[in-house]
């Protein structure tokens, strides 16, 4: 197997809350790898720590109140990003690892032209002249499929539609040809047709530029179409991790089950009464009050005593190469319990 490009080990990002109500353990011991050229889907409900994980990689967590615990480790190109000096870190941000944000409406600076903003990273990292940077911006606009790039380069964000702005965001992130692109819910704010276009664009650019993509989403439909591997997060932890086809064919964690069941499908209409979509009962608890034992047990249809008392480690459930499919669930040790009570 090839060497991972980005290796995250035991990442713990905590937030100290204002009113002394304790520490919010937003990300609590997350480990996974990102391999060159792959698309990794990071999924989970809101409040599971997906975004905090991605922000931690570039150390964009507001400190304080947030801090990354000592002992955490994020290795990129042989260096621990968490111990880099600010200057070295800035040389990596936008150059080797770039990020696109959820809201194309608010992630662009309203007072500069899109060309200025696309050129910015090239000016910062490659010391391009203004003229060369402008040419590069036009080139990037063309690359992300914006018609009339030579004119659009002088437009302001408010003159563009949401889909176009997201394309501009992608152009901004890719201007230095980064090795890793972190995309935090890049399509959530867009309508479905635009969403498909943007995902297609990301896929095409990934093939052209050969970068690894970390795609953060709560939409398993998006993951199914684009990701090679999936990491499922719940309550600040990785609960399941598998190649995409394997995860969809053989989901092992009840949480993954629940997420899959709540995706609306055209080919299999919901069988349940009144045609309602399935939902996972309850909601993600606050990050300062993760339950003891398995963190999913209050919402799990199969939970028994052991789940309440003892926190499961990540167990290997791979059928092929060891370590490719891991699950944080005691059901793996007692599979017969899965049939005891079906999903409600």
């Amino acid at each position, binding site marked *: 197997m090839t060497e991972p490009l980005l290796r995250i080990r035991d990442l713990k990002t905590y937030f100290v809350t204002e009113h002394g109500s304790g520490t919010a353990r937003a990300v609590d011991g997350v480990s996974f790898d990102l391999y060159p050229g792959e698309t990794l889907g990071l999924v989970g409900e809101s409040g599971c720590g997906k975004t905090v994980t991605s922000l931690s990689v*570039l150390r*964009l967590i507001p400190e*304080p109140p947030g801090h990354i615990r000592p002992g955490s480790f994020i290795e990129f190109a042989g260096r621990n990003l968490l111990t880099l000096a600010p200057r070295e870190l*800035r*040389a*990596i*941000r*936008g*150059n080797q690892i*770039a*990020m696109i*944000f*959820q*809201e194309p409406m*608010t*992630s*662009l*600076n*309203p*007072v*500069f032209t899109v060309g200025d903003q696309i050129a*910015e*990273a090239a000016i*910062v*990292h490659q010391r391009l002249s203004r003229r060369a940077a402008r040419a590069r911006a036009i080139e990037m606009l063309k690359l992300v499929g914006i018609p009339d790039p030579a004119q659009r380069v002088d437009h302001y964000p408010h003159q563009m539609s949401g889909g176009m702005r997201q394309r501009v*965001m992608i152009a*901004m*992130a890719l201007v230095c040809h980064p090795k890793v692109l972190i995309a935090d819910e890049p399509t959530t704010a867009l309508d479905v047709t635009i969403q498909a276009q943007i995902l297609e664009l990301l896929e095409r650019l990934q093939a052209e530029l050969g970068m690894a993509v970390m795609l953060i989403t709560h939409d398993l439909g998006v993951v199914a179409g684009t990701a090679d591997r999936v990491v499922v997060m719940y309550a600040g932890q990785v609960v399941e991790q598998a190649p995409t086809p394997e995860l969809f064919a053989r989901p092992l964690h009840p949480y993954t089950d629940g997420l899959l069941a709540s995706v609306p499908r055209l080919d299999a209409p919901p069988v349940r009464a009144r045609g309602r979509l399935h939902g996972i009962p309850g909601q993600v608890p606050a990050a300062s009050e993760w339950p003891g034992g398995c963190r999913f047990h209050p919402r799990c249809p199969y939970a028994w005593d052991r789940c309440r008392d003892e926190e499961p480690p990540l167990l290997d459930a791979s059928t092929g190469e060891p370590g490719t499919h891991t699950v944080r669930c005691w059901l793996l040790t007692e599979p017969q319990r899965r049939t005891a009570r079906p999903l409600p």
Partner: protein
Amino acid sequence: MNVWNWLAVGGAAVLALVAVAEIRRRVGTGAPGRRFFRHPTAAPAVFVLAFFVTVALAAPLVTPYQPYLQIDITRLANHAPSAQFPLGTDPFGRDVWSRLVYGARISLGIGALAMLVAVSTGVVVGGVAGYFRHWVDTTLMRLVDVGLAMPRMFMLLMVVALWEHVPLAVLVLLIGLTGWFGTSRLVRAEVLSVREREFVAAARSLGAEPARVIFRHVLPNAAAPIIVSAALGIGNVMLLEAGLSFLGLGVPSPAPSWGNMIADGWPKMAVAPWCATFPGLAISLVVMALNAVGDALRDALDPRRETA
């Protein structure tokens, strides 16, 4: 005052009118521009400012005499306004109109430059405090508290008293450096909110260093209240300069400033009221115009008024 001077004054007025029309044509098409000119006082205020600035710049053309020239102190002191001296002469036999025009250079110049000093300092301090927060913010803002707690006039009087004749550059710096506290608080508050917006995180994720983030991404988005406070502040600074000059501690005589013209004229208020009245009117007019422009700008640049 000869016919050429009158023509030049008329020319300045026409120029100011043209300037107003041109500004209106350029910005009147956008929503902020329309909101600006919806203020009934905005256009006249811009005219007043444009007129005074033009006249001050063209001072040698619009004035018949040198501002220092004592024309004939025995017969032409305290001469009432006439065709030759449109605003009369002062107790030293100098033409009030000429002094008023040259005084505009000094008073407006000091106002603009001191405000520039104050706003730049305030923007940098407020920007740094708001962006870095924590101990940087605490330290700088306590400093601002100290600055705001000291009465400005007395502070200025104290420092100015160190000089026999205060150089104008020092006066500008002093007024500027005692006037940035309010601006810095305003900027800090604005920066605190802008820095949480997503494009700031996006800029940081691209590897931009703090100075770049502050000056390119945060401050331009906090520009509106800064511009408004600057416009309102110039008037304040001009009043301050006038006050200091009136007390004899600002612009030293015989250089004309509107403040020291009032100082020279007020003992003769009973026999030659024009000496102090006209510079007083000029100050009031310009300060009112600046306040009107500031108010109109506030309405124009406040995005929350989009629908109003």
